[in-house]
């Protein structure tokens, strides 16, 4: 019903192209996150979906009905969507009840029904009993819930959320995150969620669209985006990652060899289009590497490990953050089990989990 088709949409502001020829398909009842650094165009895309902006090219359709083209835009008030803003935008001159009831008043819903629906939605967001308060008498988290309730009470098919949790403190953010997810499951509303916080995106979404400079870099399930980043930008944005310079020794699909860390061959899976002798970058997360003391003498499986020297060890509680200098002088970061004892200067073997490594042309 309320699936969204975004077809080759472009939006420019003077010389800046905020959204560039972008296409995205959002399914009904899906929780999709637009993830990217500030200025990547994610908020612009959200406002295009809401109808606050006119695209310069392309079209936006909802449930097969065209809402936005460069020549005609259905205004926001006719779209029947909901939107939650970063600063909540709860009206300070209206009580909680009046805030939430507004959308129903506009729709000319009978007073008695308005009352029951507002009561129900306030219960859903845990605000029962605060109907007569003014926003200035509420905490940030409560205001956030008023904003949510106000959008949900009109039962929109689509809810747009623009960094709704970024103004909350860390603890509350975590709780609201869970509540949002739960709310989406229970209401069956399509959520389009904008954030720059990758952990938020991973925790909430059915699918994540990673955006960069107005384009989608990757669109997929959180696990895929995290473990199989489509390119360096995505890998970098999705969290801590080591990028190691290397060279292809043998290009043979899953059974390829790449030289890293001073000409040590490692067995890795290569994507299509990389040839022998080509310079590449190997992206691997700190938690996908293991460190073992380097036994003197030949090791069994040299094709899964690279030798190096421990440069720095930092105890972080749940993990140990360990920096290892490889033979070519480059440094990589490894998270190891806190029970392991490592000493600075010690020679170690850094083991690769080949499933977790991605290779990009360098």
């Amino acid at each position, binding site marked *: 019903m309320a699936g969204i088709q975004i077809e080759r949409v472009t939006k420019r502001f003077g010389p800046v192209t905020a959204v560039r020829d972008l296409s995205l398909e959002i399914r009904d009842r899906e929780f999709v996150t637009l993830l990217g650094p500030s200025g990547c165009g994610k908020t612009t895309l959200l406002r295009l979906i809401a109808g606050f902006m006119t695209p310069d090219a392309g079209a936006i359709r909802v449930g097969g009905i065209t809402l936005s083209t460069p020549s005609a835009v259905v205004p926001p008030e006719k779209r029947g969507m909901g939107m939650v803003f970063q600063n909540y935008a709860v009206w300070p*001159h209206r009580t909680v009840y009046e805030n939430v009831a507004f959308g129903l008043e506009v729709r000319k819903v009978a007073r008695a029904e308005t009352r029951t629906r507002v009561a129900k939605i306030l219960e859903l967001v845990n605000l029962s009993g605060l109907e007569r308060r003014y926003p200035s008498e509420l905490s940030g988290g409560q205001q956030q819930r008023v904003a949510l309730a106000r959008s949900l009470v009109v039962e929109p098919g689509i809810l747009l959320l623009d960094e709704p949790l970024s103004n909350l403190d860390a603890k509350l953010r975590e709780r609201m995150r869970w509540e949002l997810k739960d709310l989406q499951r229970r209401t069956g509303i399509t959520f389009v969620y904008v954030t720059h916080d990758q952990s938020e995106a991973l925790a909430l979404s059915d699918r994540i669209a990673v955006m960069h400079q107005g384009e989608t870099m990757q669109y997929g399930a959180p696990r895929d985006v995290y473990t199989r980043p489509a390119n360096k930008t995505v890998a970098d944005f999705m969290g801590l990652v080591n990028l190691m310079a290397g060279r292809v020794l043998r290009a043979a699909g899953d059974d390829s060899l790449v030289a890293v860390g001073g000409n040590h061959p490692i067995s890795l899976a290569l994507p299509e289009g990389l040839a022998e002798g080509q310079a590449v970058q190997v992206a691997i997360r700190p938690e996908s590497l293991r460190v073992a003391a380097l036994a003197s003498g030949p090791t069994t499986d040299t094709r899964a490990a690279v030798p190096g020297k421990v440069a720095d060890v930092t105890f972080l509680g749940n993990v140990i953050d360990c920096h290892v200098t490889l033979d070519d002088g480059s440094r990589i970061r490894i998270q190891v089990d806190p029970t392991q004892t490592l000493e600075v200067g010690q020679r170690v073997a850094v083991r690769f989990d080949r499933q977790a490594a991605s290779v990009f042309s360098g």
Partner: protein
Amino acid sequence: MTRRAARRHVRIEHVVMAISVLALLLLVVLPLASMVWGSVSEAGRPTLAHFREALGSRLYVQALRNSLVLGLWTAVLSIAVGVPLAWAVSRTNIPAKRFVHLTAVISYVTPPYLTAIAFVNLFSPNAGLINRFVRDVLGVPGLTFNVFSMSGLVLVTALHTFPFVYLLAASALESVDASMEESAQILGAGRWRTAMAVTLPLVAPAVLSGALIAFVNAIALFGSQAIIGLPGRVFTLPTRIYALFDYPPQYGLASAIALIFVAITVVALYLQRRYLARRSYVTLGGKGSRPQLVALGAVRWAVLAFCVAVFVVAVLAPYLTLLAVSVSKSWGLGFWQNLTLQHYRFVLFEYDVTRRAIGNSLLLATAAATLTVLLGSLVGWIDLRTGIRGRKLLDYASLIPLGLPGIVVAVALIQFWLRMPLPIYGTLVIILLAYTGRYVPLGVRSANAAFRQIDPSLEETARVTGAGWLRTFRSVTLPLARPGLFAGWLLVFVPAIQELSASILLFSSESITLAVAVYNLYETGALEPVAALAIVTMVIITAAIGLAARLGRAGVAGPSRVERATVTQ
């Protein structure tokens, strides 16, 4: 060592506090007290006779009613003009926004008595230029407008007060976060519904607040009320008080009426503050997004036409009239055959009264602006940077003059200084005291705002790196606060150079001021020299604003000095 530093710090606080308290006592509290005493006493004996007469005699009740009617209608007209202009400038895509803004600024700085004189030239019942044109050329005497009436007075006054509403409404409209309105829109509300349900309630406190300030200002303006009201027999509180100083002066009755006047003003200002404080939703300088401008299409030309109409009535007509009169040998003869600069020569060089008046006003305005900013800095510093007891009281005391119309300040000062052995009555000193007292709130507010913007940590950094209190103040606080203080200085200088309401009771032939000279010349019927002097006044004001704007900009180079202070010391 730390203990010694701490003790010295406390001592500075106390010295500053003592100076501020003394100044406020002398400028405000004691004169006010002696006026209050004067209103309830006669020859040293307590009596309520003055209040009985003030509230019982038809003469004064009528004046009170006229003042209220004038204030209310002026407030209404100020909203009617100010809000559309504010909306046009901050929310629509009309062209020439700077021009609209400038119209409001010029209207604000133009002394209302000059507008009044210009409008008398245009609309006096018989000789007014436009009235003559309508009657004799167009032949429709029914369309003439008699400026000597309550309507005339309201019109002229509102041309001076609408900028209060305009400025407050415009800044409120600009600072309403766009998401407030977009939230309503996405919930299905159209443009009109959004405006009524969200925008209007959010900016209403600012509009109302502007209207109340317009009200307070309107009823206090002596010049326009005398020039337009007296011939039209529309007597108001200031003109009645003025009349009571004719020989023999009736100080007691004047004081009683002045206190009633103060009561009205204070109630209005109290409402304004309370309403604003309780219902101020607009967050200034917020990080939220700016509202999108409404694309008006063809309607914008109609909106612009309204703005141009305001410009014509408020700025163009009065200034053109004054300019034309000032260069005519005799107003009313053929214009192009009678061009002359003789009136300028007369007021600038030949007539010693006007010459003296110009010098006096320049001196008084400069001194008053400097003194108020200085005193304001002391009070502001005590309030923001010390924990000294009674600092809030001091801050409040410095705001008292806000509730005192100019003529009331004069009444109070006269009462006080006539009882003192120091013979300053009739000198420039008493006028300086009046100006300084009147404008102290402006100085305090500006200084307070300027200091508030400076995070104490900046000063503390300087102290930690070894700079003493004075050095810190000189190289950190002052440079950072300078633009704000300069704005405050200008804020006092401009009204002081044109001050009439207090000066009219305090001047002598030696201490005559610019505005009083204009008024006196007008009273003698010397239209052309009056117009010339009016233009001179405006040139001085414009030059002062231009100069101050330039100097103020140069003073913004503060932060680099802070760096120097914190790094090198």
